[in-house]
């Protein structure tokens, strides 16, 4: 069995997971107390009107038929109407998703450029003072809830030192860049507007760090243990006996195998950061999908909840496919093992 077959298998499996997730959430959401038709029409609508709307919405059908209708709609890009915005949920998500992806994307970058080098150094110089300090910092980072990190960050850097803004994606007076991707950082660069870029960057710093903190701690620790595992392998000992310089061992023989473990964790980190975004967007008034999702949940806006959940599930599945692909490239053992397993 080839690696491509393995990936194809993973793809089918991902689709299965998405279908399972959609059924689960659909059933839960249908258990919501309160009649969506009644909620949509308000308290003064007559019973006949409500019944009519229920019929139009297909809510008088059995639940499995409703599910089939919903999936048919989703495949056509119609995710139903949101009661809060009175728009198609697909449109809403299109509108709110880029802000969340930008936030999570930047925080994944923090996780990678901070967590991995720290972990590499800590593992390479195990039990040195650097190792001990970075372990302590990682421990502390993992124990701070994202919303606590956000609030304390605001208190120190915004209210205390006055160097970072508290809310939003841009200052009030800054005009958003012309929309191409929806990511302000990229759009402002495309428009060649460095001032807007800087403003957007300053605004995303605190939120993205709050989202990233736990992930940074986790990746640091996993990279560290991965490196120390690799370093205790026989072939590294053999290289040392051959008299190969330490620097060469580190860069040529140690680095690549050390990356597999952290890489597989990055997929999980991404998922948990999407969860963290639900808390952090609330703290920073970040106009993203998570904030939209919370409002939908609090107001029992069924279609919106369903839409948000499915988009997050989809993102999770895609990221895991990418991780599978990349780790197969980095580490041929995974390719071979998976191929021989099936």
């Amino acid at each position, binding site marked *: 069995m080839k690696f491509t077959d393995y990936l194809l298998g993973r793809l089918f499996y991902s689709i299965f997971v998405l279908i*399972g*997730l959609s059924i689960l959430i659909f059933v839960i959401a249908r258990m919501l107390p309160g009649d969506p038709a009644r909620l949509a029409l308000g308290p003064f609508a007559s019973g006949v009107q409500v019944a009519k709307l229920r019929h139009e919405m297909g809510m008088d059908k059995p639940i499995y038929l409703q599910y089939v209708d919903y999936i048919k709609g989703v495949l056509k890009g119609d995710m139903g109407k949101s009661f809060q915005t009175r728009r198609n949920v697909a449109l809403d998500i299109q509108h709110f998703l880029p802000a969340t992806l930008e936030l999570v994307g930047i925080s994944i970058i923090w996780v990678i450029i901070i967590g991995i080098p720290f972990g590499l150094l800590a593992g390479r110089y195990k039990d040195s003072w650097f190792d001990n300090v970075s372990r302590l910092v990682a421990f502390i980072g993992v*124990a701070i809830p994202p919303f606590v990190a956000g609030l304390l960050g605001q208190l120190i850097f915004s209210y205390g030192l006055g160097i970072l803004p508290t809310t939003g994606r841009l200052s009030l007076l800054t005009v958003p860049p012309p929309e191409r991707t929806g990511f302000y950082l990229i759009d402002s660069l495309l428009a060649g507007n460095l001032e807007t870029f800087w403003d957007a960057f300053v605004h995303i710093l605190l939120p993205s760090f709050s989202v990233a903190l736990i992930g940074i701690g986790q990746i640091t620790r996993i990279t560290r243990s991965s490196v120390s595992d690799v370093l205790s392998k026989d072939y590294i000992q053999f290289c040392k006996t051959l008299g190969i310089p330490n620097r060469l061992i580190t860069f040529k023989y140690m680095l690549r195998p050390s990356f597999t473990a952290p890489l597989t964790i990055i997929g999980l980190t991404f998922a948990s950061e999407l969860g963290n975004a639900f808390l952090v967007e609330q703290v920073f008034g970040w106009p993203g999908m998570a904030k939209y999702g919370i409002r939908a949940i609090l107001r029992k806006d069924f279609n919106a909840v369903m839409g948000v959940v499915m988009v997050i599930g989809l993102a999770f599945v895609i990221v895991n496919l990418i991780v599978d692909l990349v780790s197969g490239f980095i580490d041929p053992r995974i390719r071979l093992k998976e191929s021989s397993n099936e």
Partner: protein
Amino acid sequence: MSSKVNGDLEQKELKVTSTKWMELKNRIGRGWFRFRKNPISLVGGGMVLLVIILAVFAPYVTPFPTHAGKVTNFEKIFQPPGKEHWFGTDEVGRDVFSRVIFGYRISLLMALVVLGISVPFGVALGLIAGYVGGIVETIIMRITDVFLSLPALVMALAIGAAFTPTIGKAMLAVSAIWWTWHCRLVHSLTRSIKTEDFVLASQICGDSPLRIIFKDILPNCASAILVKITLDAGFVILVGAGLSFLGLGVQPPKPGLGTMIAYGAAHLPTQWWLTVFPSLAIFFLIFGFNLLGDGLRDMLDVEGEGI
């Protein structure tokens, strides 16, 4: 004759149990020795123990036990931290220190209830999936995959959305997803233990699957499960605080730590103590559980999925 044989057998069994006891005692002794040697787990254990004691005896150790509920004291609103109110007072004049300690009660209860429901359930399913294999394994493990395709907090939010928000419902919602982690861990452990010689020996002796699962496999998963539970406790508390922060957990006037932070955030930066002290309190507890779990992991030398 036959009675003599029986007597012998009984004696033998007695002996076996007594050596088992000795062994257990020795193991605990060895474990405690290694635990003492590890300063990290000692510190973590101390932190957790302190919080547990404070929470259990909350009505006796807090200066204003009534302030955990519906009390107003408008003469003393927004008092900064001082001698009388160590952590200051909130928007209706309640003592923040007392509320934080009572908040610990809810956080610990959350961890206890969620893990108490989800661990036995997850472990049982993991044992079944790992030992029985085949279609049963596929079904159970694919269901866990579906549950794990969303971040824990989001899944809990989506499930919690179906109910009116209370702390009890939040606990149920988190339990409904938490079993999957333990199911996965025990499943992978069971699969590897199943192929060991001593399991094979029991199978050859004709032991029932149930006996093999409980006598041979479960004891060998125990230390991994214990470590996972300790590490999970901090995580459950974190998710619970997150739910409360978003308004889907503890409802005021109950003193949930997440709820207090959410309400305190509205008074930043002037009344900073309303946010800072509950925040530090939550960090302290999670940090303690993490240190303890990490120390236990090193001590018991366990490895496994998700540990």
